């Protein structure tokens, strides 16, 4: 697919280039060669890009014009996985055809290994001998030498690339064939393939876990057509579209590594359902009218329907379980697929205008209604989380409809040349599924902003917004049967939200621009005894540009972000008891700190023939954990503790220094030569993601050990150097 698309772009470029019908043309291309090295194969270096070792075509562009005809083809790195190609062909302003192709790689890990062998797409098998070894290890988990041996064995398992590639092709034809009319047809084809880590459990004591390099092979096709009619004060736009998602992988099946010499309660092959195919049909009609007082009223109604009829995977269970409980009909399903159907209706009405000179305002109303019409599926005898674990008792699937209504007023009033004031008044209402613990809530928001321009070269603004969300009631029965009555899930909990932002831009002299912006927000959950208590966000960003001398530009910026979240919870080792006093409360306060800094210097030799650019970027993310608990969890149960026994997780660090030096020699208006040297240093400290074992055994839980087979795809430090030479030719 990709090769065909790239070929199409090349052929178009060639056609444009050789065609004699064009009266005028311009364009250019850059070619070069490069080399890079990296001390550790950490995927972050190439996360979203593809650096070539050897020759490359960096960019190309060709434009041609003749009378009312125009065409262009351009792109970047067309021979690589991270490429972008685009073209247009236009006749006057009546017809224009655009096409583009984007290749986006996403690399997750270059060091993953798996003992599983994929015998066919999505089917993973594990050799009997390995199953036996892992199972023996599980049953004697305290034996470190055995553990080491198996780690070594798995370390030599075949490597698996964890990466996906997304290729997106888009086409758009726009026509204005007659006065007042505009038509547009858009299509896109999104192909995604590769593999990514996916975990699952085989259930049972300790919850043994398996991580697999799950294959991805998906395609999404979208087509939309719209027509706009504009005449006098009225405009109408109608859009119709459809989308089809096709997953070429229906299921992931894998051997249970505990089955080899286990009892009959183990399943042999586990299976997971992959994302189901779906279809979406959508339509939208928009009407807009120009009204007196420079006002415009626009009404939008959009309707879409998503359907999903992927066949269910068959229910499976270990025959031992079936015999044990003597259940009949456990594996029968009412129907073979979900017959899922969701209808979304969105209404949006806005009246914007300037009823008098200094005032600009918008009245708006909006409702998003998601109606899940999927019929429920009953499982009268329960379900089978894992083949050996039958959860008895009737269950029924539940539709997840919701409705959101937002209405408000935005108003801006100019106090003259030097100041503006804005206000925001907004109401929000939600209706949530009737099986959630909160079925309705409402939020009121009030905000204001003051913008000042005290000097021609100085702009400043400050804004504040406050919102209060309250639920109508809390239905304990709907909360998974019975959970803590004072616990609130944060997406539906009562919330007070404050936001404050400010910005100053100043150009004290013509050669200097400075700006500083800051943003702070706080979400408070005042009625949550347990659950998320608060989230506090602060961000500051400053930037400056100096045109120091005629041939030197300097720019730089620095940003700092801090997010603090506090949550409280309560631990209950065994069963659900709606009792908040005799359990084990704990708190976790997390802090994320982010730093982003960049600096750039552009220097030109006096002859303007030589240009040297230096770029430096620094990013650092750091998370710290602060835990406390007031009770001890032990084998004997939960006991009161004299002091906090929780031990904080070590802080995480993700730090990158990236520097590049580029020199360009402008030999002539048509020809440039250049070279780039780049250096990257990446440091990681993340206890949860580093040193991930290939086989994980919980040594304190021998016998019913929580065993896991991971992919070993831990984060790595690295240092990388890259060097490129390139030449640009323009015509």
């Amino acid at each position: 697919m990709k090769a065909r698309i790239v070929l199409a772009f090349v052929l178009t470029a060639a056609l444009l280039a050789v065609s004699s019908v064009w009266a005028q043309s311009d364009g250019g291309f850059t070619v070069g060669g490069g080399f890079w090295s990296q001390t550790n194969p950490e995927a972050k270096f190439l996360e979203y890009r593809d650096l070539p070792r050897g020759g490359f075509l960096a960019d190309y562009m060709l434009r041609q014009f003749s009378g009312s005809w125009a065409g262009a083809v351009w792109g970047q790195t067309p021979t690589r996985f991270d490429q972008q190609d685009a073209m247009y062909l236009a006749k006057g302003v009546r017809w224009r055809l655009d096409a583009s192709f984007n290749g986006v790689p996403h690399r997750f890990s270059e060091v993953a290994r798996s003992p599983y062998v994929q015998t066919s797409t999505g089917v993973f098998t594990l050799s009997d001998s390995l199953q036996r070894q892992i199972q023996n290890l599980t049953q004697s988990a305290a034996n470190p030498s055995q553990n080491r041996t198996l780690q070594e064995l798995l370390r030599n398992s075949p490597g698996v690339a964890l990466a996906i590639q997304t290729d997106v092709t888009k086409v758009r034809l726009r026509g204005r064939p007659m006065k007042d009319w505009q038509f547009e047809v858009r299509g896109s084809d999104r192909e995604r393939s590769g593999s990514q880590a996916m975990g699952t459990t085989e259930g049972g004591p300790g919850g043994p876990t398996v991580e697999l390099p799950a294959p991805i092979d998906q395609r999404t096709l979208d087509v939309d057509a719209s027509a706009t009619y504009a005449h006098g004060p009225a405009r109408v736009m109608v859009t119709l579209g459809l989308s089809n998602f096709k997953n070429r992988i229906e299921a992931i099946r894998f051997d249970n590594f505990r089955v080899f010499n286990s009892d009959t309660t183990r399943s042999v092959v586990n299976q997971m359902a992959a994302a189901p195919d779906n279809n979406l049909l959508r339509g939208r009609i928009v009407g807009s009218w120009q009204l007196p007082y420079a006002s415009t009223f626009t009404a939008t109604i959009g309707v879409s329907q998503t359907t999903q009829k992927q066949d269910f995977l068959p229910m499976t269970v270990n025959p031992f379980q079936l015999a044990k409980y003597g259940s009949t009909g456990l594996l029968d399903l009412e129907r073979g697929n979900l017959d899922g159907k969701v209808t979304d209706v969105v209404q949006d009405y806005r009246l914007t205008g300037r009823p008098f000179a200094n005032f600009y305002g918008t009245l708006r109303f909006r409702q998003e209604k998601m109606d899940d019409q999927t019929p429920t599926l009953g499982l009268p005898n329960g379900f089978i989380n894992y083949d050996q674990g039958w959860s008895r008792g009737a269950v029924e699937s539940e539709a997840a409809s919701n409705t959101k209504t937002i209405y408000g007023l935005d108003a801006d009033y100019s106090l003259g040349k030097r100041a503006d004031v804005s206000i925001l008044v907004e109401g929000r209402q939600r209706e949530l599924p009737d099986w959630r613990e909160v079925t309705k809530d409402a939020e009121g928001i009030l905000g204001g902003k003051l913008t000042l321009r005290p000097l021609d070269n100085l702009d400043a603004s400050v804004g504040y917004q406050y919102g209060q969300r309250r639920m109508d009631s809390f239905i304990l029965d709907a909360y998974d049967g019975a959970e803590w009555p004072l616990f609130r899930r944060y997406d539906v909990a009562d919330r007070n939200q404050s936001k404050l932002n400010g910005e100053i831009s100043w150009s004290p002299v013509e050669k200097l621009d400075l700006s500083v912006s800051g943003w702070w927000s706080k979400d408070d959950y005042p009625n949550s005894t347990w659950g998320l208590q608060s989230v506090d966000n602060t961000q500051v960003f400053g930037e400056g540009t100096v045109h120091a001398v005629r041939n030197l530009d300097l720019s730089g910026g620095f940003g700092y972000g801090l997010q603090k979240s506090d949550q409280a919870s309560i631990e209950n080792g065994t069963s659900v008891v709606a009792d908040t006093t005799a359990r084990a409360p704990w708190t976790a306060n997390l802090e994320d700190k982010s730093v982003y800094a960049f600096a750039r210097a552009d220097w030109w030799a006096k002859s303007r023939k030589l240009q040297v650019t230096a770029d430096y970027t620094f990013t650092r993310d750091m998370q710290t954990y602060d835990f406390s608990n007031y009770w001890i969890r032990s084998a004997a149960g939960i006991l009161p503790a004299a002091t906090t026994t929780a031990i904080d997780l070590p802080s995480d660090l993700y730090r990158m220094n990236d520097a590049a030096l580029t020199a360009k020699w402008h030999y002539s208006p048509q020809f440039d030569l250049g070279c780039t040297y780049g250096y990257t240093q990446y440091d990681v400290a993340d206890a949860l993601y580093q040193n991930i074992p290939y086989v994980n055994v919980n040594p304190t839980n021998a016998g019913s050990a929580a065993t896991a087979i991971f992919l070993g795809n831990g984060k790595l430090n690295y240092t990388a150097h890259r060097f490129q030479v390139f030449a640009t030719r323009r015509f």
Partner: protein
Amino acid sequence: MRRGFWLSAALLGSSLLMVAASQALAESTLVGSETCKDCHQKEYAQYLTTSHGRAQTDGATLPEKMGCETCHGAGSAHVNAGGDAKDPGFATIQRPDKMAADKANAICLGCHKGGEQFYWQHSAHARQNVACVTCHSIHNSQDPAHAKLLKKENTTELCLTCHKSNHLAMGKSAHMPVGGNGMTCNDCHNPHGSAGPRQIRALTTMELCLSCHADKRGPFLWEHAPVRENCLTCHDQHGSNYTRMLVSRPPFLCNRCHDASRHPSQLRDLTDLQTGAVTTMNRSCLNCHSQIHGSNHPSGKMFVR
């Protein structure tokens, strides 16, 4: 006193100049683009390579003689000034980059009133007095092939000129492939306004996210209610410090909602990590509950298969 005199004189002078200019503007007539070319050769040459230039060659699209003057207004008074900046007629030519944003935008909206620009009047940019020419340059665009007449090489660079704090979000360890050859701000947002929140290119946030992540579209047999309502309950779309752009790290993210009994309720601290608890290391809860966006397996109620 003396200062007051000069100030009054300056005010009077400029008022007279404005009156003269407005009269000249009212009297100006169309001269045609060929006339403009005589003095503005460079601008005219580039203009011809843009869609605006093609409008002139497109038969009945524009009335006779319209071209440069479609945007710059009738030019006879400007031409008659003969390049004399002191002549009141010289300043009668309209320069959108020097005009108030709403007046400058009205010129552009005369033609660009459908498709992408349908919602402009209701957009946050219009409200903030952003002019079309703040982002677009008709005569000196920098984007490849001048296909969108942007003032910068790419959309993201252009957006970051004002939306500076997004530098910080995009620099975080988990972010979308924005920049380079991947995505641009423009893939999710329509800077000209839209019917969706935050000027997104969809009617709802869910519709936007699911347009690329169609595998999460479902509907699923077993739905995770917050997932079905809003992706942003758990993800930060512009970047976060946590893998998959989560707003916090599992298991603490999951603990914010799940606190009933057994393993969802337990605090996962260093002891758990040292003893190799699979609920803590690697993807934590998602090591097992990987189908967290919904499961279509008859036994997928707990999102493990």
